[in-house]
C-alpha cells in the first residue's frame, strides 16, 4: 500500500524544508498581491508577530524538554493586566519588575509541578490555563484595565517606540531570539534540555538534574510570556482580561511548524522564528488577498500538516508513512 517514493529528498530539503516552504510561500503571496512585499507591510507583520514570537521562544524550550505549555496565553493576559494595573498604582519603574516577578512565580509553580513533582505537563498547564484566568479576573475584578495617562507615559516605548529605526517589539524579539537561540544551541544547559527531552531516564543516569532543567525551561517560558505581556500592554496601554486567550494554540502551531517534535528532544529557536513568521504572513497575506478570516483557519491547517509531513517524510526518506 505504501507508495514507494523511494528517491531521497535532498539533504538540504531534509533539514531546511521549512525554509524552502517559507520562501515559496512568500513568492506565491507576493504574486497575488504586490502590497504583500511592501516593506511597511513586512515590518508591520513582523511587529505584530513579535508578541506571538516572543512567547514561542519560551515554549520552544519547554517543548524540546519534552513537555507542553498550554498556559502561556492565559499567563500573558495575566502579565498584561497586572503591569497595566500596577503602572498607575506604583509607576512603571516598579510595575515592570513586579509583573516579571509575579509571572516568573507562576512559571516557577508550573515548573515545580512538572519538574519536581513529575506531573503531566499537558494536564498541569491545562489546569493552569483555567486557574490563571481566574487569577486575572480576580486581580482586575473582571474589568478592562487602562492606563490613565496614555500620552505622557514612557512605558509605551516597549510597544510603540523605535530604536535605530526599528520598532522596539521587533528589537526585543530579535534580541531574545538571539540570546535564547545561542543558549539552546551552544551552552551546556541547552544540551541538557535536548537530553532531558530525548530520554529523561538516560539524562538522569548521566547526572543531569532533570527536574531542575524542566523547572528552568518553564521559568524561561514565563520570562518570555512576561516580555510578551509587556509589549502587549505597552502597545495598547489598555487591555481586556482575555487578551491572550487562544494564543497558546497559535504559539504551539508556530513551534510545530518550526519542526520541533512534541515528543521532545528536537527543534531549534531559529526554526521556531520561521514558524512564527509563516503564521504571521499567512494571516496577513490572506487578509490582503481579501479572504475571510476563517479561510485562514483552513489554510493554516493545510500548511501545518504539509510542513510537518514533509519534514518527517524527508527524515525517513519516504513520502508515505510505513505504518501498515
Amino acid at each position: 500500500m505504501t507508495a514507494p517514493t523511494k528517491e531521497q529528498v535532498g539533504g538540504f530539503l531534509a533539514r531546511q524544508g521549512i525554509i524552502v516552504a517559507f520562501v515559496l510561500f512568500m513568492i506565491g503571496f507576493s504574486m497575488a498581491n504586490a502590497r504583500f512585499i511592501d516593506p511597511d507591510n513586512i515590518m508591520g507583520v513582523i511587529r505584530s508577530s513579535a508578541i506571538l514570537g516572543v512567547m514561542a521562544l519560551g515554549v520552544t524550550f519547554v517543548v524540546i524538554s519534552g513537555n507542553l505549555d498550554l498556559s502561556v496565553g492565559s499567563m500573558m493576559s495575566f502579565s498584561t493586566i497586572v503591569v497595566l494595573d500596577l503602572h498607575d498604582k506604583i509607576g512603571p519603574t516598579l510595575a515592570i519588575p513586579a509583573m516579571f516577578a509575579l509571572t516568573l512565580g507562576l512559571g516557577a509553580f508550573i515548573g515545580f509541578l512538572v519538574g519536581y513533582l513529575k506531573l503531566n505537563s499537558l494536564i498541569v498547564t491545562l489546569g493552569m490555563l483555567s486557574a490563571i484566568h481566574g487569577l486575572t479576573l480576580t486581580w482586575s475584578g473582571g474589568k478592562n484595565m487602562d492606563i490613565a495617562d496614555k500620552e505622557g507615559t514612557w512605558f509605551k516605548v516597549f510597544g510603540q517606540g523605535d530604536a535605530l529605526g526599528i520598532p522596539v517589539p521587533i528589537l526585543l524579539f530579535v534580541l531574545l531570539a538571539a540570546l535564547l537561540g545561542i543558549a539552546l544551541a551552544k551552552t551546556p544547559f541547552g544540551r541538557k534540555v535536548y537530553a532531558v527531552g530525548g530520554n529523561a531516564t538516560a539524562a538522569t543516569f548521566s547526572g543531569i538534574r532533570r527536574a531542575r532543567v524542566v523547572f528552568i525551561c518553564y521559568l524561561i517560558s514565563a520570562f518570555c510570556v512576561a516580555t510578551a505581556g509587556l509589549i502587549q500592554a505597552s502597545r495598547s496601554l489598555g487591555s481586556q482580561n482575555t487578551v491572550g486567550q487562544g494564543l497558546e494554540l497559535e504559539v504551539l502551531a508556530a513551534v510545530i511548524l518550526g519542526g520541533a517534535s512534541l515528543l521532545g528532544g528536537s527543534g531549534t529557536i531559529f526554526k521556531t522564528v520561521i514558524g512564527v513568521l509563516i503564521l504571521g504572513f499567512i494571516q496577513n497575506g490572506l487578509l490582503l488577498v481579501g479572504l475571510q478570516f476563517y479561510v485562514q483557519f483552513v489554510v493554516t491547517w493545510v500548511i501545518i500538516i504539509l510542513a510537518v509531513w514533509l519534514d518527517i517524510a524527508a527524515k525517513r526518506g519516504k513520502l508515505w508513512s510505513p505504518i501498515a
Partner: protein
Amino acid sequence: MSDRTPALRLEGIVKTFPGVRALDGVSFDVMPGEVHALMGENGAGKSTLMKVLGGIYQPDEGRIFVGEVPAVMTSPLEAKAKGIVFIHQELSLAEELSVAENIYLGELPRKRFGLVDWARLEQQTNAILAKLRVGFDAKTRVGDLSIANQQMVEIARALTVEAKAVIFDEPTASLTDAEKVVLFDVIAGLQAQGVGIIYISHRMEEIFKITDRISVLRDGSYRGTVKTAETDEESVTQLMIGRKLDLSRNEIHHALGDVALEVRGLSCADLYTDVSFEVRRGEVLGFYGLVGAGRTEIAETLFGLRDPSAGQILLDGRDTVIRSPAAAIALGISLVPEDRKGQGLVLGMNCRDNMTLPQVDDLRAGPFVAEGAEVAIFDQYRDRLDIRTPGWKQLAGNLSGGNQQKIVIGKWLSMHPNVLIVDEPTRGIDVGSKSEIHNLIRELAAQGYAVIVISSEMPEILHVSDRIVAMYSGRIMRTFTAEEVTEDKLIQAISGLTPENVA
C-alpha cells in the same frame, strides 16, 4: 542435506541506510529441522537481515524463497502468514496486557462479530505455558513479570503458529541457566517438527551446543557457512573479525591500593539486605548471581538512584550519603547501566553528544560547550573501543546494539572515575569487542581505578575479576578470591545452597 529443499533461502540481499551499507549481497539458507547460527560482530548486519526476513524492512536488492516459492514480504503480517516467526532482540511486548493477549498478539482467536474468544485463548495459552514450564498463567499482566519471564512470553510466540522458520535474535541475553535449558528444549521440539531455525547469539558455548551450521557476516557481507561439528570457536572467531583473537588475560602486575569504596550493612527495602563489601584501587570486584539477585539495585544505590534503608557507604574511608547521580558523579563514581537504550543513551542525539553528556558542564569554553574538546574525546574512545559509525554526527539510535553499548562504556570511561561500576558490560557485544572490553577493564584497574563488574556470564566474571561476590536473593552468600574460585563453588553459592559460609 543439499538434495532437500531449504525451509528458507536468501539470495543476494542488499540493504542500505543513509550512509551505511548494512547488507551487501548476503545469501544463505536454512534447512527444515536445522538450527542455523548467524554470527558476526556488532553491526555486522544480523538484525537487519532478520528484519528483512521478517517483513519489517524491504531489501533494496535480492530475493527470498520460502520453500521453493519466491516471497515478497512487505509487512510482518505477511511474513507470519508465510510461516516466518520472529523473536526479537529487544523485548516487543505490550506490558498492560495479559500474557495470553501478548502471545497471541495480532491473532487473538475470534468468535463471531469480531469478539475475542477468551475461553479458547486461555486454554491455548495455558497449553503453551505448560510446555515452557513457567510459573505464571495466561491472565497475568505482562508488566508484572520479570524481564526473564517476559523473554519467555516472547519465546512462547514461536509456538503459536505452524511455523516453517523461526528466528531467535539473541534470545538468551537475559535468561537464567534454567530458563535456557527450557528454551533449548523448545528449540529441539521445533527442530523435531521440521521447522528451520535461525539462531543469533554472541555466546559461543550456546552456538556449539545447539546449532548445526554457522553462517558468518562481516561488515554486511557474507563470509561463509561452516558445519558446527567441523569447526571450533577460534576459527569462527577468525571468520567473524578477520584476525586471530588473543584470549589470554591481560595480566599487568600491580599493587592494590587503598580501599576506595566500602559498603557496610547496606539494605534497601526488600531488594537486598545487609550487604557489605569493599573495593580497593587497582582491584576488579565481580558480582555474580542470577537475574533478580539484587546486584543492579546495589549499583543503583551506589549511584544515587535509590535511597538505602540501612547501612553505610564509605568513599575513601569517609561516610558518604549519595542522593543523586549528579552527586555520585561528583564523587567520582560512574555507572554503565544495564539497559543501554532506556538508561544509557539519548537515541535521538548524536554519538558525540551522548558520549560527553555527563561532563558537558566541565567541557566549556566560556559559557559555551567546547565542541572541539568533545570531538577529541569521541575520537579517542571510538578508536579505543573500535566503535563502528560513519562519524560522530550519526544518531545513537542508528547504531547496532553492540556499538550502542560501546558508546555507553566510552561515555563513562571518559569520566576517569575513582569507582567504575559496569552492569552487564558486554550484553549483546561480539567476541572481539568483548575481549577488548575485558582487557580495558583490567587495564583500568591497573591504572588504579576501583572497578565493580556485574555480570550474569560466568566466563566473563571469572575472566576479569580479582575477587567475586556471589549473590543470591538480595544477600551476599560468599566472596571468593580469583585463586580459590571454581565454577562449581560459584554455582553453588548463587543457588543459595551454602547459606552458612558468609565471607
